[in-house]
């Protein structure tokens, strides 16, 4: 986790510094790539350029990192790549999730299993691990790619090792196999498990491995210490799909072959054959250490490359006004004083926009200026909705209206005011550089208070909605059972009496699952989270039931107050205030809550625990670089502990986000228990990434190695920042290509 701290303090998002910063962090978007087959006949699809196609991207080793079999390579994955690796040989199983967070930094989270180990009191020994990889050198025509890696560098660490590796790729001439063959040659030096066989020298002493520590802390006193050994190998790819690997492994497998008897290591040489089934899946079969067969399933995806490209129904062309000289009557502004005209125009807008999933909330109109307030029900790209509203305004409003203000809303709060001139809309639509020109012409400003003359969409309130849907609640890394899962159905409903007000609730019925089999809590702190297995023993529960109001108390300010049964384990009062200017990368928020712990049956009672706590945080949010969102919170947590949480998420402009967080509080590692402090990774994926159809729904989860009681926060529905960020300048700017779609 300390690695995140080496990120620089970023400057302002706009201005000349922004480009240099973007290059440094994301090195530009070099997304146009070569043809599928350079020898294909011109005019065939195979000869045409492609976008973000990396056929030569690294294959994965058994640790889910770029590499051979047990040995890593010097390569990095394309920016944003997500890899899932499942490997197994001779009783050694590894299940890894990797993420290329930036072009030069990658992180992995892994679960290891050692079958029949009878080690440290476990029949099958399970272990978690984190890796970090830094690409020191990008491959060029002359120089190899070089990576420095920390393998299994946090936690109890049975496969801790550090390395520096270099890989050079050579294109092969066209052969009978095809035109796209290549050869990758890798060499490196390893410490730790990677320096345990054939070591050539030593750097200091490495502390012994201790299976009974609480773990969770960086083992920096052992990095690059002790004996080190060379390793290397070759990957020959006769075609894009087929790969043949040979490696010399410097891992002696002391734990699996000497401390225990999981398999026998007869030779340092490993062999493998891999085949790319499709763009996402690569399968490999191997002969390892002269004694064992193994396999590796490698799954790769990239959040930037949708499984199905989003196809949004074509918009209606912009209706161009007649020249005022040929049709002066149409340009008359005599209607401007009328009371009947605004509601009629509002109804016309509703008719055009409602079928497109855009709810018109209000229209304010004068002779030359109009403002439409709307909420976006369907289009994930918010910018797509902005473009749709602009087209609808050009279609419906009288010619004299020249200035369009477009105001996206969420839960009754106006979030932004995007301004465009109607003439620009008419002129730019078919220009070759329409997107870049729009970027320059759209104005963003703080929305004013709703005008008393606005024609409101009176049909919207009161409104009742409900949904019946399945839910899945997983828990990971129980030593007895790596994955536990509850599955059930949820009925949720929301009643909105007026803009900004909501009364919401959710009932759950568990169909089946095994969360309730989790280990009983041994926590010495108040059991604010660690009794989750007890809470899972009840089938019919009330997940939440609350009333909330959110509103704009002033310019750049957003506020929320919520009261009721807020979440599974707590109920009470929650208040929040957020400052976030439309054009600023910085947001500041403060949240104050007073809550009591709910009974385990999750109905109406609070008596079982008799635990009340005041909890709250001040939070700074900062967006920078190629979609990085940093958050720092300080305050009081549910167990009454004081401390701070730092998180860093890589956000993509299609709604994907992947990040990590950790929390340090005044609870000591001993009081906290296993893991020493709270930390985890989380991701969120938009459903349209898979379906290719417009939708704002997302799915996601947070994975924590273990749930304890220190550093735990309240889960309040309807927090402000996510609602606000999605419609502010940076988010919209980054999706500007959707304006004209």
């Amino acid at each position, binding site marked *: 986790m300390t690695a995140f701290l080496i990120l620089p303090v970023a400057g302002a998002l706009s201005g000349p510094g922004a480009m240099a910063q973007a290059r440094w962090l994301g090195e530009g*978007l070099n997304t*146009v790539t070569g043809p599928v087959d350079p020898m294909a006949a011109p005019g065939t699809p195979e000869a045409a350029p492609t976008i973000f196609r990396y056929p030569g991207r690294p294959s994965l080793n058994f640790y889910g990192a770029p590499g051979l079999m047990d040995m890593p390579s010097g390569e990095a994955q394309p920016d944003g790549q997500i890899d899932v690796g499942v490997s197994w040989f001779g009783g050694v199983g590894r299940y890894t999730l990797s993420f290329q967070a930036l072009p030069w930094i990658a992180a992995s989270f892994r679960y290891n299993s050692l079958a029949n180990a009878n080690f440290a009191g476990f029949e099958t020994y399970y272990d978690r691990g984190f890796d970090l990889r830094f690409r020191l050198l990008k491959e060029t025509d002359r120089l190899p790619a070089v990576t420095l890696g920390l393998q299994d560098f946090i936690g109890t660490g049975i496969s801790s090792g550090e390395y520096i590796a270099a890989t050079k790729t050579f294109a092969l001439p066209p052969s009978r196999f095809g035109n796209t063959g290549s050869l990758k040659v890798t060499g490196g030096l390893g410490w730790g498990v990677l320096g345990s066989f054939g070591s050539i020298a030593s750097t200091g002493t490495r502390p012994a491995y201790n299976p009974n520590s609480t773990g969770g802390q960086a083992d920096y006193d052992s990095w690059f210490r002790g004996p080190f050994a060379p390793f290397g190998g070759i990957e020959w790819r006769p075609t894009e799909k087929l790969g043949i690997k040979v490696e010399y492994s410097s891992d002696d497998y002391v734990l699996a072959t000497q401390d225990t008897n999981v398999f026998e290591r007869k030779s340092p040489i490993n062999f493998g054959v891999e085949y790319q089934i499709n763009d996402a899946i690569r399968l490999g079969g191997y002969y390892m250490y002269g004694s064992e067969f193994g396999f590796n399933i490698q799954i790769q995806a990239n959040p930037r490359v949708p499984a199905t490209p989003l196809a949004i129904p074509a918009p209606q062309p912009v209706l161009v006004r007649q020249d005022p000289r040929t049709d002066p009557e149409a340009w008359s502004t005599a209607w401007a004083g009328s009371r009947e005209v605004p509601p009629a125009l509002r109804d016309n807008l509703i008719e055009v926009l409602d079928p497109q999933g855009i709810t018109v909330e209000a229209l304010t109109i004068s002779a030359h200026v109009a403002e439409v307030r709307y909420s976006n029900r369907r289009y994930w790209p918010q910018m797509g909705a902005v473009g749709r509203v602009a087209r609808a305004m050009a279609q419906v409003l009288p010619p004299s209206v020249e200035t369009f203000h477009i105001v996206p809303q969420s839960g009754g709060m106006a979030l932004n005011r995007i301004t465009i001139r109607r003439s620009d809309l008419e002129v730019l639509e*078919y220009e070759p550089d329409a*997107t870049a020109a729009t970027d320059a012409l759209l104005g963003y400003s703080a929305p004013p208070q709703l005008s008393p003359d606005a024609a409101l969409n009176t049909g919207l309130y009161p409104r009742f909605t409900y949904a019946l849907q399945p839910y899945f609640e997983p828990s990971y890394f129980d030593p007895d059972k790596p994955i536990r899962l509850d599955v059930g159905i949820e009925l949720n409903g929301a009643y909105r009496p007026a803009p900004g007000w909501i009364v919401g609730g959710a009932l759950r019925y568990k169909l089946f699952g095994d969360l309730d089999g989790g280990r009983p809590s041994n926590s010495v702190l108040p059991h604010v989270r660690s009794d989750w297995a007890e809470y899972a023993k009840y089938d019919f529960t009330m997940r939440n039931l609350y009333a909330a109001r959110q509103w704009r108390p002033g310019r750049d300010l957003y506020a929320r107050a919520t009261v009721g049964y807020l979440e599974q384990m707590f109920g009470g009062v929650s208040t929040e205030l957020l400052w976030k200017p439309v054009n600023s990368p910085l947001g500041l928020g403060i949240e104050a809550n007073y809550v009591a712990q709910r009974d385990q049956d999750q109905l109406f009672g609070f008596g079982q625990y008799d635990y009340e706590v005041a909890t709250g945080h001040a939070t700074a949010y900062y967006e920078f670089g190629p979609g990085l969102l940093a958050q720092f919170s300080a305050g009081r947590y549910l167990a009454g502990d004081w401390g701070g949480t730092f998180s860093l998420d890589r956000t993509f402009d299609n709604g*994907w986000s992947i990040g990590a967080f950790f929390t340090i509080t005044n609870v000591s590692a001993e009081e906290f228990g296993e893991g020493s402090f709270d930390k985890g990774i989380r991701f969120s994926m938009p459903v349209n990434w898979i379906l290719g159809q417009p939708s704002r729904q997302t799915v996601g989860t947070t994975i924590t190695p273990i749930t304890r009681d220190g550093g735990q926060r309240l889960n309040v529905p309807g927090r402000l920042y996510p609602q606000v960020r999605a419609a502010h300048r940076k988010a919209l700017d980054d999706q500007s290509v959707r304006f004209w779609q």
Partner: protein
Amino acid sequence: MMFAKPGLLRPALLAALALLAACSNRGDETSATLKTLAALQAAATRAVSPDEAAAQPPLTRAVLNTIDGEFIQAEIEKTGSRAFMYISAERNGQAAGSEGGRLLVWRTENDVSLTLRDGVLIETRGLGGDLVSAEGGPALAAVRSRSAGQGAKRQVYSALDNKPVVMNFVCAVDDLGPETIVIVERRHATRHLRETCELKGGTVVNDYWVDSRGPTVWRSRQWAGPNIGYVTFRQLTP
């Protein structure tokens, strides 16, 4: 009439529903025209499946003669899906923007649109991985003058996570000489122009068959990006 959107399986039921709901944002088409169009579209939809190709009612000039207005047929090579398209918007001269000419937005009933400037593709919408905007480039000049030429051409695609991906091509247009082509029983004397564009080792070839007396492009085959691939256009009417 339904373009199957790449990567999406669109059941025949949806096609049927879209036909029932067929309507146009232009009020000037007669219902008879719409009905004929619907029948043609049904035929074209069936034609997507090769097994049923033999059973489809033939597209004849006699049928086309009953239609008022301009229609084109577009086919996405990759998916084999075809669509009959009507004019959803037209702009001429200065109103068509800095590159001028006659700009037509062609649309299908299932909300796909393709925009051609003097027959040169400059935009697609509703297919995914769309061509957001483009220069007509040397092809536009060549089609207008019915002669060879060369120059740069910029296309902007919507790809990845809502990003504009710019492709800057270097192009040359060759005049392949006169050719007579037949579109549904009607012969057209044309000049065959071929635009070859290069970028990052990749090559794109666009073909235009321009009326030998101009300005109509009766047939063309144009690249619409890595996701959509090549699209062929045939001007059916008038």
